[in-house]
């Protein structure tokens, strides 16, 4: 960010007199605002798409009253949530009750910072990108626990407990499943990981096709990450048919909207991480977006990245409207007995593969055989 600010200052003579840090700060605020706008829009449109997908699958139509094809439904929902009475239960812990939604939202939103949206489109390309995402999403747990406890509602408390247990135990398989991509790229930076998947023709540079283990890694990651973000069929913290609505049962109005947005934000983060780590990120198949002029390259890669990520989000919705929910002990068992061992085996396999074949994937090996 600072380097960018420096180049900007040197490029535009009009702002040469402004201190560098002011420009940096302004740019930080600006990129945060852009990301926030994206997250909010995604949350809104995501809810629309979710309902449309639900409608399609359930032989219904879905929202179609507000605006053309119901496209403005999310604005109506947003307005409704804003205008709704904000109810705080009389015996709730007011301070924590108010704090919790923000914490949850911050935890989910902070992950957007490192997502590689395009060739040069990253708010901050941290060199510990993947690790950072894992770290900040753990903030969500604290928020959820707080929400559950502060509501002074036993169902909410149960939901909070479930959420915490679930997120903590699924952090391990998520981390382990994403490791192969890190191993291949030799870096934790998401941009580096994406760049490592260039080369080779078309989609075969993707980590997904690097070797059999990474192929499975993708599915393991996708499963575990859905669980970590409380998506159906792992939505036991919300479980509307058991816990009514879990940790957010007492929330209303805009505070509820924060939970809601955080959920959709998480959805996108999961899809984006899977895209970046396994599906070639912003790489355009059969085309080198980096070679284009900066503006067009960025736009093209942004579009490709979003298409891939949205496709994954769609798959998540599809799963959501198909599967029943696991029970809490089965969920734990699935993590500890299935996902954790499998991801470890997978990691071992990838490591061995990289050791034996000197870091080359199957497509690269075939290519070297031919050429």
């Amino acid at each position, binding site marked *: 960010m600072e380097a960018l600010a420096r180049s900007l200052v040197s490029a535009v003579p009009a702002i040469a007199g402004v201190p560098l840090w002011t420009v940096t700060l302004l740019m930080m605020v600006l990129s945060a605002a852009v990301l926030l706008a994206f997250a909010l829009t995604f949350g809104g449109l995501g809810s629309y798409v979710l309902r449309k997908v*639900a409608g399609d*699958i*359930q*032989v*219904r139509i879905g929202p179609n009253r507000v605006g053309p094809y119901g496209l403005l439904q999310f604005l109506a929902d947003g307005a409704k949530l804003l205008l709704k009475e904000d109810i705080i239960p009389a015996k709730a812990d007011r301070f924590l009750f108010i704090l919790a939604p923000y914490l949850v939202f911050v935890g989910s939103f902070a992950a957007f910072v490192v997502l590689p949206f395009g060739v040069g489109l990253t708010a901050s390309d941290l060199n510990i990108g993947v690790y950072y995402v894992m770290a900040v999403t753990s903030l969500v747990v604290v928020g959820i626990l707080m929400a559950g406890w502060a509501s002074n509602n*036993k*169902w909410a408390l*149960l939901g909070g*407990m*479930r959420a915490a247990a679930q997120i903590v135990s699924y952090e391990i398989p998520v981390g382990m499943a994403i490791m192969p991509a890190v191993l291949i790229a030799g870096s934790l930076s998401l941009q580096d990981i994406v760049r490592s998947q260039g080369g080779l023709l078309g989609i075969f540079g993707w980590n997904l096709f690097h070797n059999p283990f990474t192929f499975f890694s993708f599915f393991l990651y996708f499963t575990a990450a859905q669980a970590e973000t409380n998506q*159906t*069929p792992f*939505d*036991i913290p919300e*479980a*509307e*048919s*058991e*816990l*009514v609505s879990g940790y957010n049962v007492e929330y209303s109005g805009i505070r509820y909207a924060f939970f809601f947005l955080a959920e959709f934000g998480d959805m996108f983060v999961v899809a984006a991480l899977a895209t970046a780590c396994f599906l070639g990120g912003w790489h355009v198949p059969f085309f080198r977006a980096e070679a284009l002029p900066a503006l067009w390259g960025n736009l093209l890669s942004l579009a490709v990245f979003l298409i891939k990520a949205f496709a994954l989000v769609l798959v998540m919705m599809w799963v959501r*409207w*198909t*599967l*029943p*929910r*696991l*029970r*809490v*002990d*089965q969920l734990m068992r699935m993590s500890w007995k299935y996902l954790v061992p499998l991801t470890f085996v997978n990691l071992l396999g990838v490591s061995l593969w990289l050791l034996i074949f000197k870091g080359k994937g199957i497509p690269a090996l075939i290519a070297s055989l031919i050429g």
Partner: protein
Amino acid sequence: MTTPAEALPTQEMLINMGPQHPSTHGVLRVLLRTDGEVVVNAKPDVGYLHRALEKIGERVTYAQFMPFTDRLDYLASMNCNCAWAWAVEKLAGIEVPERAEYIRVIVAELNRISSHLIAFGSFTADMGAFTPFLYSIRERERVNDLFEEICGNRLTYNFARIGGVSADLPQGFLEKTKEFLDYFEPKIPEYNNLISYNKIFLHRLANVAVVTAEEAVAYGLTGPNLRGSGVAFDLRRDEPYSVYPKLEFNVCVGTGERGQVGDCFDRYMVRINEMRESVKILRQAIAQIPEGPVLAKVPRLFKPPAGEVYFRSECPRGETGFYVISDGTVNPYRLKIRTGSFVTMNVFEKVTKGLMIADIVAVIGSFDIILPEIDR
């Protein structure tokens, strides 16, 4: 030696599940004593929907009570209607035209399908899969269309009359029913593929809340809940009434397909299989139905002879029995209704010990209770 767990006793948590809860299928209150997620004790508290139907029955005439049986089990009004009619006919010794009996069986079996569809759909919705619920509603709507054609209402049918049915079948009804059966039959394997044999679903149900055959009999369970425990008892076959003896069908029982006999999955599968059997019965009934009148001559001011009668019939939620005492006037002297769901609640506390909160939902769903029937 005391283990740390004994030295530091944890306190159990009391949770109210209901009366307002999405998965209690109405206003059922279950008082849960839980140790974390594990339910130590689940005590059902019924009565929030009590409408004194039995007392109403003593106030109104025999014919007037018919609409109230709609409200007994609103998902299977036809069955309850017919059960009441059969009970009163047995009391008064009225001969019912055969065509009327066939019509009753047709609507009752159609209603059994639609009721089991709701049981299936709401159960899967309880399990977290919302989509099968809407599929089941889609099918049920077609049954409702048929019912609307035959009696004019979509939920509270009030179709049977003492001595027959209120109206003959409308033009083309049997063809439409056949059409529906052809449409519906392939949907059952689709449900099975969609969710019944889904691994998650199986894990949620298999071996959960096992009611053994002895327990089921001892607690007086009836209907699919009893058959789910492996007891092949079906009033349509074992205590035949109406034209059921002329129809061929199997009595579906729980087989312990994926766990022990009598678990939630068995009860669930019994309902799925019974829909198939109902289709079979319907096809036969449509083929056999004779021409003729549909209503016996019953005086408008109907006064059955003094006496008492108990009649029970196989409803989708178990045995629905009417115990009627007549003193020879236009009103019953005393009316007692036995319903399947109410009896099922007895065994609820026993089988839910040691389950988890999510299982309670599964148990309620697998018993397929309906609150108006419990509270009457």
